Structure formats: structure tokens, C-alpha cells
């Protein structure tokens, strides 16, 4: 398998081509498209597993497919890099994609146009695989854009809705802003290193000076901010919930939004040599995590809660990166993929049962009606809230642990090469606050949806559990969400995943820092998460007046969170007004200067020719005169100046 890694992206591409070509106006309602997509993506997953197994033999890691650009000093090939990091990402991508595709076959079964859906889903899976398996920045960028395109197509899947179209456009445009920085970063990297290939860049890192490295690192991170929805480029992700729930699960929770995390982790040798960039990444991640968690606390739409939760958890992944612990970021990426996809699919189950109702204020008391959905959702929620011993606990705890280690690094140790280590205390405390809020909003969501008295009895009466095609993926994901963390992460910082990723995505060595008591840290995070859970239980399970207390203690906070920290208003003011002003100036310039020049040239020609026209008197004698004058001048000139 290591000799033919191209099989992995090829299978979904075939599914895309077949579904795209076979669909016609009469046959769009068959479930066959979904099965074809699921089957081929599952084949891709099998191929990935085979790749994983054969990777131990340590044969060649790079596979060149095709020489794309060969122009003097600039050479780019379409090539695949299959190391441990790639394998981990591919397992996550293909695994979750298979389960989501299977779920979607059931979820979209009533849709009249589902063949279109199952044309775009394999195209997305293909693009994501190619993104992860690339061995150079340019190829990654091409597929970065492709996944953005698929996201646009799938968010706007129900294009008859204006809100869906607006959301799809917003997603693409905000992404484009990040891509601007990304592109400049790639250009700078090529300018500095003469190549865009990872391996060759890493070999030449020593020759660049730190400021240039930091600049490249930050610019590439801007791209990651756009794709992974970090502040201020996070605004597209909540709107992206306009797409069908399987899309939200696959693209906006488990795979596409993790591409930014993957990018930075892939380039970790570059980032390790640019500590200021890591500080910026950690700060951005922490702030995003905090902000998104506060907004999630006051959302009423179940999918919006999960969307902001995703933004928040992605922030935590970037915090791990900023603390130099790349393995931990990937670990959290993997566990998050499991439980977030699980939660999204579970919410889809609820929405499906309630005939497309998404507002939690219309829900309640569903645990009796949807027992399987409830159980899986509850386990997913416990994983998200990082309750021991579920998956989220292991990875989230490690994120906080590495931040703590950074914060306590004594001056002069290997770690204090990261400037401003003391600020990591702020990150750690904020991380704890995020933990409380995560548990709180998660269980607020669970209690509001599944417990209490049903607030809409009519909808509640018709609610029914989902068919097996939707519940089997839920069950499989639950196994991952519960067990994967323990399987991969015990003992902390020395588990299976740490050993596996030691070279591709290392943790910058923690020796030299007083090694913290991991047990104490774990207890602290469990207490913190548990208290969040209890708060939610009290407020929404038992009806204690906690929200009222919160409103009195922190007046205005609720409005701030409900208004999403006024990001939409700021966006309006800045981008819209600015663009309108720029457009007005451009219009003025166009009319006055450009048109002026063009029209002016025309009238100048007219004036000039009007004067020259006067030679044509129509009188033959004048013409003869001119001839004589010319003759005299010519002969005179010849005679005088020969």
C-alpha cells in the first residue's frame, strides 16, 4: 500500500465522478448514490488502514505522481508524503467521512435531489485527503481552496433559501481573507528557501533569519485562522450551520476546520524556530476559545451551540500548538473529531425526529422518546466536557497541562526560549474558565433538549427514534468518543499517540521544566469540568435560579454574548462601509480620470484633424504649390547638406 498511496484519494474521486455523471432529472431520489459514496469512502478507509500497517516497514515515504511545474528555479510536483502525521489525519478523515456518509444516506433519504449531495461529499473527501497527503505547500493550497469550494457547495445545498446562499458566500469570502495571508506566506517561503516542498524547507531552515521565519509563520497562520475559524475570521462557522447536519458534522467539526491545525503542525520545525509566532498562536487560540464558549452559553439553536463549541475547541488546539506541544494538538483534534461528529449527528437525529425543528426552546423531555440518540449524545457530551474517563478528558487535560508547564518554566530552561512564558499563566487560567463553560453549555444543551417537560407537545408526540442507518454511525462514534482517549493517551505524554508522532509532530522537550504532578493537574481539570456540569444541572435540570444570579452579577454580559461580542456590527461597520467607500472612490476615479483621458484623446484627435483638414482646399493650384515647395526643399537640402 505504501507503493500506491494514490488509491486513497482515487476512490472518493471515482464516487464523485460516478455520482456526478449518473444523476439525471428522473433518478435523483435513490439511496444508491449515498451507498455508492459510503462504499467507496469506506474503501478509502481500508486503504488507509493498510497504509498504516505497512508504514512500519519504513520504506520510502514520498511518492511522486506527476511533474506539475518545471520552470527554471521553480519546480513543483504532485506528490504524496505518507508519514505518521499523515496516517493519523487520514484515519480521522476517512473514518469520520465513512460514518457521516452512511448517516447522510439515511438523513437525506427524503430529499428530492440527494444525488447532488452525494456528488459533493466524495469530492470534499477527495480534496481533504489530497490536502493532507500533499508534500508541498502549493499542492496543499490548491486543495485548501478545493475544500473551501466544497464547503460553499454544501452549505448552500438548499440553495432555494436566501440565508443558505448568504452563509455559503460568507464562508468562502472570509476564508479568502485568510488565503490572502496564506498566499503571501507561500511566496515569502519560496523567496526565502527556493522551494515549496516541506522536506526541502526543513533542510534549509537554518539559513533563514528569525524575523523572516516569524513573518512566514504568522502569514501561514493567517491562512489557518481563516480555515479553522479563529478570531476574527471565525464569523463564518456559525452561519455555516445552514447546511444539512451531516455537512456540519463532517466539514465544520471533524475535517475541514482542522486543516488549519494540520497546516501548522505539519510545519512544526518552522514554527519551533519562530517562538513569537507561537505566542501569537497561543494567544489567538485562547481568546477564541474563551469568546466562543461564552457565546455558546446563550444560544438557542442546538446546532449553533455545537458550532461555537467547535470554534472554542479549535482554539484549544491552537493553544496546544502555541505551547509547543504539537502531538497534543493532534490528539485533541482526533478525539474532538469523534465526539463533535457524534454530537452533530446526534443533533441531526433530534432535528429529524422533530421534523426539522432546531430551536431548543421547542424541545424537552426527549430522552424517553429517543433513547439511543440520548445515550450516545450524553456520552458525547461527557466527552466534550472532558469528564474522566472519556476521550475528551485525556486530550483536553493534556492541553491544559502543557500550558501549565510552559507557564512554570524557570528562566534559562529550554522552554523559556519561548518569550513571555509568564503570560501562559493567563492562558492556563482562561483554559480552566473555558473548561467550566464547555461543561456548562454542553449540559445546558443536553438538559434543555432531552430532559424536563416537553415545551412543544405536538412535536414531541410525533418524535421517533432514527432508523439503523443513522444510529449505527452514532454507536460507532460513541465507541471512539469514549475509548479513544484512554487508548491513545495513557499514560499522559507517554501514550501510544505520543510515541507514534514523536518525529512528525513532537512535543518540544519538557525536560528542564519542573515536571508538574500530572495527577494534581488532572484533578484540577476534572473538578473544574465537574463544577460546570453541576452548574448546568442546577440551572436547567433542577430549575435553580442560577441564570438569574448570573444576570445580576454580570449585567450586560448576556447581551454581549447574545450579540456575539458585536462582531456582526463591527463587520458591517468596517467591511461593508469601507467597501462602499472604496467603490465610490473607484467610481469617481473611473468617470473623471479614465473616461476623461479616453474621451480627451478622442476630442484632441478631432481638433487636430480639423486643423490639418484645411490643407485640402480642393484647388489644384494649391496642391501644385505644395509640390513645388517640397521639391525645392528636397533638392536644396541635398545640394546644401550632401
Amino acid at each position, binding site marked *: 500500500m505504501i507503493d500506491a498511496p494514490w488509491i486513497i484519494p482515487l476512490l472518493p474521486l471515482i464516487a464523485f465522478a460516478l455520482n456526478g455523471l449518473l444523476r439525471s432529472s428522473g433518478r435523483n431520489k435513490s439511496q444508491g448514490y449515498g451507498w455508492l459514496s459510503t462504499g467507496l469512502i469506506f474503501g478509502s478507509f481500508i486503504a488507509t488502514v493498510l497504509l498504516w500497517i505497512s508504514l512500519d516497514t519504513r520504506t520510502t515515504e514520498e511518492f511522486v505522481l506527476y511533474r506539475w511545474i518545471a520552470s527554471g528555479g521553480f519546480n513543483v510536483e504532485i506528490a504524496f508524503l505518507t508519514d505518521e502525521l499523515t496516517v493519523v489525519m487520514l484515519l480521522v478523515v476517512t473514518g469520520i467521512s465513512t460514518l457521516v456518509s452512511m448517516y447522510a444516506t439515511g438523513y437525506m433519504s427524503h430529499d428530492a435531489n440527494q444525488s447532488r449531495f452525494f456528488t459533493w461529499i466524495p469530492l470534499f473527501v477527495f480534496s481533504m485527503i489530497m490536502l493532507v497527503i500533499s508534500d508541498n505547500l502549493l499542492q496543499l493550497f490548491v486543495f485548501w481552496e478545493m475544500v473551501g469550494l466544497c464547503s460553499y457547495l454544501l452549505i448552500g445545498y438548499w440553495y432555494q433559501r436566501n440565508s443558505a446562499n448568504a452563509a455559503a458566500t460568507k464562508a468562502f469570502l472570509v476564508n479568502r481573507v485568510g488565503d490572502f495571508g496564506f498566499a503571501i506566506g507561500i511566496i515569502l517561503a519560496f523567496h526565502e528557501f527556493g522551494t515549496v516542498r516541506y522536506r526541502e524547507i526543513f533542510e534549509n531552515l537554518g539559513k533563514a533569519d528569525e524575523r523572516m521565519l516569524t513573518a512566514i509563520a504568522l502569514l501561514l497562520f493567517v491562512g489557518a485562522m481563516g480555515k479553522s475559524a479563529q478570531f476574527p475570521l471565525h464569523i463564518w462557522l456559525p452561519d455555516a450551520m445552514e447546511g444539512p447536519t451531516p455537512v456540519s458534522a463532517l466539514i465544520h467539526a471533524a475535517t475541514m476546520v482542522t486543516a488549519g491545525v494540520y497546516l501548522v503542525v505539519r510545519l512544526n520545525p518552522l514554527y519551533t524556530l519562530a517562538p513569537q509566532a507561537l505566542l501569537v498562536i497561543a494567544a489567538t487560540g485562547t481568546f477564541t476559545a474563551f469568546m466562543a464558549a461564552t457565546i455558546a452559553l446563550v444560544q438557542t439553536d442546538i446546532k449553533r451551540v455545537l458550532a461555537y463549541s467547535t470554534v472554542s475547541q479549535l482554539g484549544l488546539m491552537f493553544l496546544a500548538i502555541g505551547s509547543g506541544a504539537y502531538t497534543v494538538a493532534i490528539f485533541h483534534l482526533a478525539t474532538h473529531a469523534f465526539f463533535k461528529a457524534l454530537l452533530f449527528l446526534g443533533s441531526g437525529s433530534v432535528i429529524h425526529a422533530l421534523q426539522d425543528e432546531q430551536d431548543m426552546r421547542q424541545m424537552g423531555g426527549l430522552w424517553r422518546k429517543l433513547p439511543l440518540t440520548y445515550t450516545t449524545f450524553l456520552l458525547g457530551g461527557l466527552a466534550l466536557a472532558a469528564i474522566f474517563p472519556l476521550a475528551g478528558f485525556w486530550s483536553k487535560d493534556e492541553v491544559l497541562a502543557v500550558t501549565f508547564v510552559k507557564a512554570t518554566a524557570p528562566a534559562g530552561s529550554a522552554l523559556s526560549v519561548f518569550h513571555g512564558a509568564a503570560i501562559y499563566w493567563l492562558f492556563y487560567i482562561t483554559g480552566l474558565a473555558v473548561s467550566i463553560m464547555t461543561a456548562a453549555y454542553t449540559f445546558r444543551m443536553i438538559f434543555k433538549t432531552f430532559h424536563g417537560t416537553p415545551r412543544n407537545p405536538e412535536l414531541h408526540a410525533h418524535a421517533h427514534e432514527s432508523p439503523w442507518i443513522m444510529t449505527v454511525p452514532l454507536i460507532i462514534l460513541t465507541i471512539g468518543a469514549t475509548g479513544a482517549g484512554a487508548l491513545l493517551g495513557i499514560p499522559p505524554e507517554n501514550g501510544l499517540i505520543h510515541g507514534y508522532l514523536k518525529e512528525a509532530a513532537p512535543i518540544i522537550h519538557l525536560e528542564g521544566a519542573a515536571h508538574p504532578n500530572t495527577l494534581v493537574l488532572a484533578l484540577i481539570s476534572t473538578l473544574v469540568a465537574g463544577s460546570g456540569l453541576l452548574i448546568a444541572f442546577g440551572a436547567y435540570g433542577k430549575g435553580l435560579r442560577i441564570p438569574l444570579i448570573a444576570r445580576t452579577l454580570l449585567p450586560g454580559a448576556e447581551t454581549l454574548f447574545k450579540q456575539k461580542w458585536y462582531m456582526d456590527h463591527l463587520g458591517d461597520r468596517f467591511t461593508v462601509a469601507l467597501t462602499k467607500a472604496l467603490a465610490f472612490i473607484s467610481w469617481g476615479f473611473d468617470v473623471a480620470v479614465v473616461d476623461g483621458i479616453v474621451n480627451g484623446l478622442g476630442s484632441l484627435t478631432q481638433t487636430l484633424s480639423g486643423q490639418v*483638414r484645411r490643407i*485640402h482646399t*480642393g*484647388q*489644384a*493650384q494649391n496642391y501644385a504649390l505644395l509640390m*513645388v515647395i517640397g521639391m525645392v526643399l528636397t533638392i536644396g537640402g541635398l545640394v546644401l547638406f550632401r
Partner: protein
Amino acid sequence: MTLSGFLMVGALLFSIGALGVLIRRNAIVMLMSIELMLQGANVTLAAFSKYLDDQAGYVLVVFSLTVAAAEVAIGLAILVALSRVYPVTNVDQLDSLHG
């Protein structure tokens, strides 16, 4: 009777003829001026032929006279035909090619 004397006469004839063509407004006077130019050339030819002892000049004069006669005949015929439509006494008025 030096050569330069004959040449000056020839040049004078030619110049007067040229000026006449350019300045006079009567078409018949223009034709006469053109004839004058031709005669100026003839004088020059004859002078060179005498002083270089080459008969070629005399022969060319005979040719030139013949051509001049034919040309005048045709020119006058055109003028007669033209005079029925346009006033040939003032060629300044023949400006329908004015643009």
C-alpha cells in the same frame, strides 16, 4: 554667348513658367505657363548639346516640341469641354474636392 548665359535664360524661362502656373487664375494662362516651362527645358537641352558637341540634345528637343504640341491640343480640348460646366476664367472656383 557663354554656356552659363544660355542656362540662365533657360532657368529664367522655367521659373517664370512655374510661377505662372502657381499664381495665375486663368486656365488658359496656366496652360501657356506650362508651355513656357517646357521651352525653358528645351533651351537648356539645346545649349548643352551645342557646347558638348553631342547630337542627342537636339534630338530630345525635337521630341519635346512634339510632345508639347500634343499636350496643348489635349489640354485645350479638356478646357473647352470643362468650360461648358465650370467657369475656367477663375480656377479658384473649381474646388469641389474641398475637404
